[in-house]
Each structure stands twice: as structure tokens, then as C-alpha cells.
């Protein structure tokens, strides 16, 4: 009898946890497991310092060169056309204290929570590309659904021809994912860059996801079977950026009132 009772509790926990976003108490973002992971990462982090430094340097160099291109010559004037388009996104840094990539539903834990302004549903990126979405938040920690989660869809597009689809992990190789819902008539070349579409304002437009390495007709009669090599190296994630969108609420309520489901 006790077995049936406990097993029923376990199964109900599995079912209740299956919803994508929700504030479940029993996961790695609660204070207890969060602080254990924090202590562990405080110790282990020293071993990855040099590679973290290197990736930050690379990102810095890239940002510097972009800044150089934006800097206005001394004899120019600048007229803003539409100030509403400014600063619709803001970024927050956070440290990854727990990561998994070998299961079929992988999660990360970061050391920022509701005290730092993290909310469920926020997009998560790092300097290489898309990482995932925030699933649940406690005061000081949050759990993130990794892109390596068989139920997470990321709205994306092919950079060269602006055709859009959804990126989804197939659960096999943590370096590859599938681009779905790209119609058969579209010409997709191997080596095409796939980036976020920016349609649902979870991610800004143009964050890299991966490059096309294989295009097949696929079993579905309407869509191509496209395999991507992911830009983000999930085995080496140590710092991530949270994307806070100022338009998210407005967009969501608009979608809701018009009956369009997000994603």
C-alpha cells in the first residue's frame, strides 16, 4: 500500500514537472540545492578560468570592433528616426553553477534569481549563441531549460534567405539539433547560418543558433529535414546572459487578446 502511495506521489511529481514553465519547488533552483551547487562551483571554477578568460576576450574583441564601426565621425550629425525602437532588450550576466547535457531533457542552474530580477520565460544566451529559457526562479537561483531539451522550441530563421522555422533538439547528439518546419521549396545550402528570428521577443533578433550541416528531404512530405551544428558548446558553458525584454508583456497580451499562441 505504501509502495502504491509513494509511487503515486512520484508519478504526480513527474507529471506536474512536465509543464515547460512553472514554479515547481522541487528542482535545482531551490535554495538548498542552489547553495550546494554554488559551493561546488566555487571550488571547481578555478579549473576553467583560463578558457573562460579566453572566451570573454574574444567577445570583447568582437564588441570593440562593432563599437568602432558605430562610432560617428566628428563632422557627422545623428537624427533618431524612432525612439520607440531603442533599447527594447536588456542583458544581465549570471554564472552557471550546474549543467547537464547527456539526458534527453537537460537543465542548467544559474546563480541569479528573483532578487536579481530574473523571471520565468526569459531567454538565456551566452557569447556563442542561444542557451535556453528560464523555467523556474527562486530568490537567488534559477533553473533554465537548456536548448538540449526535447520539448524546447526556439523560433529561428536562416540568415541568408530569412526563411523561418523552429529549432528543436532531437535528443541524440549534444552538438547538433534539427531545424523544423522549413518548407520543401526553400533552397538551403550547407553552411548557412541559422539565427534567432526575434519574433516572440524572448531572444533579440540575430543571436546565432547554429550552421546547417545536412539537408535531407525528410519523411514529412511538406518539410525539409535540416540538421544544425550548434554554435553554443554546452559542455563548456560557464557564464550566460539573461535577456530581459521590455516589450514582452505587451506582445504577450496582444497575442492573447488576438488568440495567437506564442511559438
Amino acid at each position, binding site marked *: 500500500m505504501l509502495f502504491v502511495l509513494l509511487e503515486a506521489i*512520484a508519478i504526480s511529481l513527474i507529471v506536474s514537472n512536465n509543464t515547460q514553465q512553472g514554479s515547481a519547488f522541487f*528542482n*535545482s533552483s531551490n535554495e538548498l540545492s542552489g547553495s550546494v551547487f554554488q559551493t561546488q562551483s566555487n571550488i571547481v571554477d578555478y579549473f576553467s578560468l583560463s578558457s573562460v578568460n579566453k572566451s570573454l576576450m574574444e567577445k570583447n574583441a568582437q564588441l570593440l570592433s562593432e563599437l568602432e564601426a558605430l562610432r560617428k565621425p566628428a563632422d557627422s550629425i545623428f537624427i533618431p528616426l524612432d525612439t520607440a525602437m531603442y533599447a527594447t532588450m536588456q542583458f544581465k550576466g549570471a554564472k552557471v553553477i550546474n549543467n547537464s547535457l547527456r539526458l534527453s531533457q537537460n537543465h542548467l542552474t544559474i546563480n541569479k534569481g528573483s532578487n536579481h530580477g530574473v523571471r520565468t520565460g526569459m531567454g538565456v544566451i551566452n557569447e556563442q549563441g542561444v542557451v535556453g529559457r528560464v523555467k523556474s526562479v527562486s530568490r537567488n537561483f534559477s533553473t533554465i531549460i537548456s536548448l538540449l531539451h526535447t520539448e524546447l522550441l526556439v523560433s529561428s530563421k536562416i540568415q541568408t534567405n530569412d526563411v523561418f522555422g523552429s529549432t528543436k533538439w532531437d535528443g*541524440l547528439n549534444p552538438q547538433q539539433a534539427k531545424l523544423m518546419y522549413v518548407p520543401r521549396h526553400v533552397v538551403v545550402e550547407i553552411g548557412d547560418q541559422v539565427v534567432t528570428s526575434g519574433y516572440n521577443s524572448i531572444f533579440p533578433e540575430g543571436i546565432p543558433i547554429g550552421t546547417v550541416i545536412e539537408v535531407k528531404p525528410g519523411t514529412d512530405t511538406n518539410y525539409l529535414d535540416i540538421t544544425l551544428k550548434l554554435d553554443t558548446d554546452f559542455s563548456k558553458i560557464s557564464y550566460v546572459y539573461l535577456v530581459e525584454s521590455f516589450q514582452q508583456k505587451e506582445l504577450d497580451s496582444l497575442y492573447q487578446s488576438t488568440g495567437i499562441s506564442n511559438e
Partner: protein
Amino acid sequence: MNSIRVISILLSGFLYLLFQILVLKNLVLFGTAFCFLYVTYIILLPLDIKTIPVLLISFFLGIGVDLFYDTLGIHTAALLVIAFIRHRWLLVLVPTGGYEDDLQPSMLNMGLGWFLSYSVPLILIHHVLFFYIESLGTDLFLTSLQKVIASVIFVLVMSIIVQLLFYRRRRGI
């Protein structure tokens, strides 16, 4: 059963949990072989612990592991099944002359052959349940099968090593 023994059993469970979430969680050989060593703890619990305490211990151990793996309820569900059938399975495998009361069903006490025939089915059931619940709703049958087989072998090897290192043979035999 005195209180020192109870405490030492619970403490070793806690050690298994700590070792699992701090060390073994990051150890996945070849991308397929997971090491769920905490299953060994439930398998090696002494025989005089009845099914109900075993169920309670495995429930809390499973929840603890689940918390850190972000696989809420899956480890628990799989571990509870093992805890439930452990006692019956022990009765099936009873050697001539029966068990001693507080025997620990380990390799050192019972021999390698008996231990393998006792633990392999239990570990296999746990891993099949875990990986198939985990990948529920996807078409990853073969990948999961690969993970199950690789992990069972890995856990068995690890559990034999742990027994050789940390468990004592019963004195007086």
C-alpha cells in the same frame, strides 16, 4: 537493531547521495554510461530492514537525487520499484540454509555469482524505468537502450569496486 546501527545506515545513505550529486553527476562515460551508484545503497541494505522502511528511505533518497538532477520524480519512481521488489527477489534467491538475520546481501558475503544474479535484474529494472520515463514522448528507443546497457555495466563495475574498498566481510564465517 540499536540506534547506532540505524544512524550509520542513514549516514551511509547520505554519503551516497553527496557522492552522487557532487561527483558522479558530472561523470558520464562516452556520453552514454551514467553512474547511478546510489542504487547500490538500496540493493545492499541489510536483510532485517523491512520493506516499509526501505520504501521510505528510497523515497527520500530518490527525491534528493531528483532535486539535483532536475528530473523531478523520475529517480524516485524507479528507485521505489526496486525497493518494492527487493524483498521478494531475495526470497526467490534464498540459498540452502536460508539467510542470517542481519546479513548484508553484498558480494563479499554471498559471492560474486550470487551477487550478480541478485543485483543485475534490479539495476536493469531501475535503469530501464529511469531512461524510458525520462525520454517519454520522444522516439529515442535505441538511444535509451544504449544508455541503459552502458549504465548497467558501469554501475555494476563501480558497485563492485565500492564494495571491495569500503565494505567489510562478515566476521566469523
